[in-house]
Every structure is written in structure tokens, then in C-alpha cells.
């Protein structure tokens, strides 16, 4: 017997060595390449995260106030200041004195630029400011004459350098007008000037109040405005009047009396609507209107500021205390509103100054700024400069860094009571045409809309995709599976903008006209499928076997088309019988369910269509990857195919199916174009399937083109992006955790 000897193989030939070296190098390169790719992805995600934070963080920075100059009072130092004001660029400021002189001065140096004297007889006995933004002032003298003056600024560029030239204008003439019929001295004055009317209130030495309304009429030819006087007959007002204010619409007159009684007079019917006793808040030491002249800000002797506005409740108006602000000072000596935002400045005791924002209910600054009592102060129109006159006869100029006061946790996530609303609410309304608009930055309607859209999309997509995946992976004939799977995955290739367009323009009106048919379809189609299945099972074997096993989908297609056609055709008759002709009208009128054409149902259908292939593809792979030995074993033990599917295959594939669902949900949450085009984009918090919504992603797409770079609106849109980022991060993390647990649980099968 010959001995078999092992061949003498040399594994260290130069060629093999080169081959091994090359393979090792390839392994190393692949390892480093994969590691680099993975780290780059994590790096990119972290970069997005930190970039979003970088854009969002400035919104939460408190205000900063820095002194830049201090100088002696410009103009006559012996006369008292009535008001301070600043122009747009905060280069020129104005000091109004009680000696009838108005001194314009350089805000940096305190150097007087121009001094104007009012053409008013006698001494100034009362002064009133319409609003800082309007720059319209009213002066009254001892003989009851009222003169209106407006400080204006002309900007020129001689030698390419900006030159701001102040000038004084008398919009209603230099003669003035009388509020009282006789020449009584006016001791207290208040005016409100609007586009169509002007209203003025005056109190004489005896405390008698007189209110005059001037209706403006423009001369057709000369375009000159003529004032037509109307006397307002007033109800009895209790107490000694301290101050009178009007709202913007000139519907309400607020009269503070005895430093504790706030009377509200309805100027539509000249009746006393309400008297609020403010004694519980302490002595009222300051009263001013917030920007927009809808809210009254009341400051008290114990350092509290409260915001009040008129609220309509059960058909009746009442003055409501909306929110309170606390200062660290013991006294509120003055309140001034910003000119373009709902922020306001509060002067306290001994040089204290606090900055608040009403809607955000936020304290932005509260510190002692000057050494002695603040007597007057003004905030520039852009709220970047603050000018304070103190009791020691000095003017101090401060620079204010307060870019984003409108944002707080409460303004984004809590209910906020906005001006003009009858109760606190969640609201998103970022911009309007008027500058005294109150921005509403609640993220709740957007987050709710996002989840609502995703929920209705998943309601359609999840059952269809998973059932489809089960059948395709487990019951379908391999030859048919090779064709069907790519067809369904083809759905993903459809641009979502096309889907949204079709959903908004074709599907939405169709569904509105065939609403019952859509719901009937949900019942008729499954019944038709089951009826066909049962009939098929009872057909002669010869016919049944004509169609190979696993091709059952094909005869079902005409059955479903017929059942859908039947449901749509029969729905008008059913609507006539059950819903008086129109289900939409019935929902609106009988059930009180509002219906808008582009609603969550449309989004659910269109977005469901977009999400189906994502879920289907991953779930199908997961089910198909379950080892065949498991299902063969189950079938061999006598289980039916369906029992095998439910008890063996599905649990084993569950981690993959769960991943598929979560990835589908992530897709639905981040989807933009479909919701943008297929809903009305109304930011409402309503679960009603027949109402629209606005999602975080659609909101960014709609509003970012019109937001000013670096503005609060711009940054809050980044914040919504950040919230969306967190949504998907939380969903994916939760999904991965659950997937790992399922894998551990069913991995040993």
C-alpha cells in the first residue's frame, strides 16, 4: 500500500506574500474608511445640533445695559422737564421743558442743537403725549388753550455723512383749541390721536373732567383735515382724578382716581362700564399704556407692575388683570413702553430700572442704574438706547442690548393670554402688517400639528405596509414577489411635491364631494376581499388550481377597484338618505364638527402614500429574513400558515418591523411638502380629522423666506428646527432601545 504524502505547499511564495499584504492593506483601508464615514456622520449630526443651538441661544440671553455718557441737562436747567424723547437713530434727543422750550441735543455729548419755543400764551399748566411713536405732544395753558406739536427729524447726507436735523411741526395749527367752553385753566390733559378721530380729556382746577371728540374730515379738494367737535357727555366719576388714558380704538377711557380707583368708560355709549378698586394692589403710583394702546400698565408703591386689558366674556366687557411683574425696587415711579415691541421699562426707587416683556412674562433686567431718583426717562424707537434724567440734574445715556425679549419658556409652551383674546390660548402668529402687533410664538400648535399629521399618516400607512409586507414576504409566489416589491418601492421615487400638489388640488375636492364614499370604502373593500376569498375557497379545484399559489393578489385587484367604484357610486344616495344630501353640511350643522377642504384626512392619505414604501420595504426584508427552518418546523408540527406567521415569523421579525414603523414615523414627522400643500397650514390645536394643521417643518418652509436674518422670528424658526431634531432623535433612540430588547427576546428563536 502506497503511503499518501501531503503535498508540499509553500504559503510564503512572493506572490502569496504580496497578495496577503494587499489584502491586509485593503482590510485596514476599509476599516479606516468605515470608521471615518461613521465618525463623519456623527460629526455632521453634532455640527447641525450645535449650529442650531448657536442660532437659538441668543434668544435666552438677558438684557444688558451699559452707560456710555453722562452730562448736565441741556437747555434751561432751572425749568422742569416734561418729557424726554429720542429719534430713530438715537443721535438726536429732545427735552421738553415747562418754560415752553423744546431743546434738541446730541445724545452722545449733550450739546444743544436747536431750541424751539412753543407759540402758546401764558404758562404750560398741563402736558400730554399721544404715544412716543407718534411724536405728537399736547400742551395746555392757564387759559384753557391746547396746542399740539410734533417733533420731526430730517435726514440728509452732506459730504456722505448722515446729518439729522430736528424740526417742530404743528399738525393742527399754531392757534390751538379750547376743551372747556370758557377759559378755565387745564390741570390735567390727555389726548389720543387716530386716523379718523382725535379725543382729548381735560381736568380743571376743581377736578371737573371734560372730554371732546374731534372727528377728522378731509376736504375733498384741498386735502386739508378739518376737525369737527363733538362733546362727550360723561357719567359721574368718583374720586379725585389722577390720570386719564384712552385705548387705541378710542372705545375705552380709563380714569385713575384717588390713586386706587380705575374707572372704565365706554365711549361708544358714554357709559361707565366698570370701576375696579385697586386697593388690594397698593397705591397706584404710575400708569401708562403698552404699545398698541390696548393694555394698561399699572405700577404700585410696593414695586409691582400689573398688566390689564379689556376682555369680552359672555357678551360683556370687563377689565381683566392679565399678569403681574415684580421689581426689586420698593416703588414704581414711571413706566414706558417700547415703541415696536411689547416690552416696557420700569423706573423704580433711587435709580433702579427694570426691563420686562409682557407677552413672554419675562424680566430681562432689574438693577440700579443711576445714583439718585429717576425723574424722567425715554427709550429710543429701536430700543437700543436709554436716556435717564435723575434728580441730581444729570442726563445719562445707556446702550441697551436686548435683542430677543419676546421669547421665554412660558411664551412657547404655556397658554398665553394675548391682547384681545377672551382667554389664555396656544397660538402661533409670527407677523402682521402693523408695528404694534403682539407676536404669538407658541410652539404647541406646531408640535401638535406635526404629531397629528404623522398620526393620521401612520394610521393609513402602518396597516397597509405591514400587511403588504407580510403577504409579499411570506405568502406571495417568488416570481410575483420579484415584480411587486420594486413596484411598491417605486412609490418612494415619487416627489412629495407632486404628491402634495395632487392631494391639495385633486384629492381634497374629490374627498369633499365624496366624503361618505371614502368612509364606505373602508367597509366595502375589506368585505369584498373576504367575500371573494371565501367564494374562491369554495370554487371547484380545477378553477382554483388554474391560478398558482401565491398569485391571489392579481384577482383581488379588480375586486378592490369594483368595490371602491361601488362605494363612491352609492355614496350620494346614502348621503341623501342619512345626511340630508351632504355629509359635510351634516357634520358642520348637526354635529358642530368644522370641516375644511384641506384637512388631516387628505394629509393622512397623501403622506401615508409616501410612508408606505419606507415601512413596506424594511418590514418585508425583516420578515423575509426569518430562517425558513423556523416556519417549516412550525408547519410540520401542524400549525396553519397563518398560525406560523403570527406565532413564529412575526415575533422573530418584530425588531425589524418595529424599526420600519419608527423610520416611517420619522419620515412622517419630518415631511414638509405634502403637509405644506395639502393642508390649509392653519396653526390650530384640534385633533379633528376634518381640520387642517401646520407642522414644524411646513412652518419653517413657509416662514423662513420672509423672516429677517438674526431677528427673533428667524431664530425661533431655528428653534422649531431644533425641536424637530429632538423629536426625531427621541423617536429613533426609543425605537433603537425597543428594537434591541425585541432582538434579545426573540433572538434565540
Amino acid at each position, binding site marked *: 500500500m502506497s503511503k499518501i504524502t501531503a503535498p508540499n505547499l509553500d504559503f510564503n511564495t512572493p506572490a502569496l506574500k504580496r497578495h496577503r499584504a494587499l489584502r491586509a492593506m485593503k482590510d485596514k483601508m476599509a476599516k479606516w474608511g468605515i470608521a471615518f464615514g461613521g465618525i463623519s456622520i456623527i460629526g455632521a449630526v453634532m455640527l447641525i445640533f450645535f449650529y442650531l443651538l448657536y442660532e437659538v441661544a441668543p434668544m435666552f440671553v438677558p438684557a444688558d445695559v451699559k452707560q456710555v455718557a453722562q452730562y448736565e441737562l441741556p437747555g434751561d436747567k432751572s425749568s422742569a422737564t416734561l418729557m424726554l424723547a429720542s429719534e430713530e437713530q438715537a443721535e438726536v434727543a429732545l427735552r421738553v421743558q415747562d418754560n415752553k422750550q423744546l431743546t434738541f441735543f446730541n445724545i452722545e455729548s449733550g450739546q444743544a442743537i436747536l431750541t424751539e419755543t412753543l407759540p402758546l400764551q401764558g404758562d404750560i399748566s398741563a402736558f400730554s403725549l399721544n404715544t412716543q411713536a407718534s411724536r405728537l405732544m399736547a400742551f395746555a395753558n392757564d387759559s384753557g388753550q391746547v396746542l399740539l406739536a410734533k417733533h420731526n427729524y430730517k435726514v440728509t447726507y452732506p459730504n456722505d455723512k448722515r446729518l439729522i436735523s430736528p424740526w417742530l411741526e404743528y399738525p393742527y395749527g399754531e392757534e390751538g383749541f379750547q376743551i372747556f367752553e370758557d377759559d378755565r385753566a387745564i390741570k390735567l390733559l390727555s389726548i389720543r390721536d387716530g386716523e379718523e378721530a382725535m379725543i382729548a380729556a381735560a381736568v380743571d382746577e376743581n377736578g371737573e373732567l371734560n372730554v371732546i371728540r374731534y372727528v377728522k374730515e378731509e376736504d375733498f379738494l384741498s386735502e386739508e383735515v378739518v376737525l369737527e367737535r363733538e362733546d362727550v357727555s360723561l357719567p359721574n366719576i368718583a374720586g379725585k382724578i389722577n390720570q386719564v388714558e384712552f385705548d387705541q380704538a378710542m372705545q375705552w377711557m380709563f380714569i385713575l382716581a384717588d390713586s386706587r380707583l380705575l374707572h372704565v368708560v365706554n365711549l361708544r355709549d358714554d357709559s361707565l362700564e366698570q370701576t375696579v378698586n385697586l386697593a388690594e394692589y397698593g397705591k397706584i403710583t404710575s400708569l401708562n399704556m403698552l404699545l398698541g394702546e390696548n393694555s394698561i400698565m399699572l405700577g404700585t408703591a410696593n414695586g409691582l407692575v400689573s398688566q390689564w386689558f379689556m376682555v369680552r366674556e359672555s357678551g360683556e366687557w370687563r377689565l381683566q388683570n392679565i399678569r403681574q411683574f415684580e421689581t426689586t425696587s420698593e416703588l414704581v415711579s414711571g413706566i414706558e413702553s417700547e415703541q415696536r415691541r411689547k416690552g416696557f421699562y420700569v423706573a423704580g426707587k433711587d435709580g433702579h430700572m427694570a426691563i420686562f416683556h409682557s407677552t413672554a412674562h419675562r424680566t430681562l433686567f432689574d438693577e440700579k442704574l443711576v445714583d439718585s431718583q429717576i425723574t424722567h426717562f425715554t427709550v429710543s424707537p429701536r430700543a437700543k438706547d436709554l436716556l435717564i434724567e435723575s434728580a441730581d440734574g444729570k442726563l445719562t445715556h445707556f446702550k441697551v442690548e436686548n435683542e430677543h425679549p419676546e421669547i421665554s419658556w412660558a411664551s412657547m409652551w404655556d397658554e398665553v393670554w394675548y391682547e384681545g383674546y377672551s382667554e389664555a390660548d396656544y397660538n402661533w402668529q409670527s407677523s402682521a402688517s402693523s408695528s404694534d402687533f403682539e407676536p404669538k410664538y407658541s410652539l404647541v400648535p406646531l408640535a401638535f400639528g406635526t404629531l397629528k399629521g404623522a398620526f393620521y399618516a401612520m394610521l393609513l400607512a402602518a396597516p397597509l405596509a405591514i*400587511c403588504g409586507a407580510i403577504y409579499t414576504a411570506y405568502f406571495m409566489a417568488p416570481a410575483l414577489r420579484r415584480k411587486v416589491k420594486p413596484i411598491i418601492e417605486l412609490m418612494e421615487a415619487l416627489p412629495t411635491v407632486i404628491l402634495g400638489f395632487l392631494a391639495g388640488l385633486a384629492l381634497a375636492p374629490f374627498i369633499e364631494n365624496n366624503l361618505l364614499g371614502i368612509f364606505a370604502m373602508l367597509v366595502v373593500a375589506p368585505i369584498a376581499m373576504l367575500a371573494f376569498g371565501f367564494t374562491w375557497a369554495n370554487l371547484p379545484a380545477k378553477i382554483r388550481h388554474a391560478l398558482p399559489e401565491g398569485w391571489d393578489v392579481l384577482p383581488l385587484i379588480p375586486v378592490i377597484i369594483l368595490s371602491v367604484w361601488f362605494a363612491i357610486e352609492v355614496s350620494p344616495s346614502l348621503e341623501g338618505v342619512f345626511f340630508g344630501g351632504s355629509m359635510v353640511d351634516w357634520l358642520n350643522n348637526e354635529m358642530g364638527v368644522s370641516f375644511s377642504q384641506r384637512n388631516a384626512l387628505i394629509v393622512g392619505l397623501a403622506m401615508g402614500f409616501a410612508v408606505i414604501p419606507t415601512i413596506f420595504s424594511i418590514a418585508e426584508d425583516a420578515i423575509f429574513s426569518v430562517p425558513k427552518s423556523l416556519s417549516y418546523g412550525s408547519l410540520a408540527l401542524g400549525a396553519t400558515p*397563518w398560525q406560523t406567521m403570527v406565532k413564529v415569523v412575526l415575533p422573530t421579525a418584530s425588531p425589524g418591523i418595529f424599526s420600519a414603523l419608527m423610520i416611517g414615523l420619522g419620515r412622517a414627522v419630518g415631511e414638509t411638502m405634502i403637509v405644506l400643500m395639502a393642508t390649509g397650514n392653519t396653526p390650530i390645536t384640534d385633533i379633528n380629522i376634518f381640520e387642517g394643521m401646520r407642522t414644524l417643518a411646513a412652518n419653517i418652509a413657509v416662514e423662513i423666506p420672509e423672516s429677517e436674518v438674526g431677528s427673533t422670528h428667524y431664530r425661533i424658526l431655528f428653534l422649531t428646527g431644533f425641536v424637530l431634531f429632538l423629536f426625531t432623535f427621541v423617536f429613533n433612540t426609543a425605537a433603537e432601545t425597543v428594537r434591541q430588547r425585541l432582538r434579545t427576546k426573540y433572538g434565540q428563536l
Partner: protein
Amino acid sequence: MKVSFKDWIKSGSPFIWLNAGAVAISIIMVIG
């Protein structure tokens, strides 16, 4: 052989038909 409705339900076939229906609906949606 005639299959009774009860046996048909017991065999789990209705669910398989419903799953097949889901695939059919998806195909109709794509082609439609």
C-alpha cells in the same frame, strides 16, 4: 370539497386574503 365559513375563518385564510388585499391596494395606488 366545500369549505364551511367557520372552517375558513379557523384556517386563518381571511387574514391572508386581507394581507393580499393590502398588497393589491398598494399596487393600485402606484399604478393609479
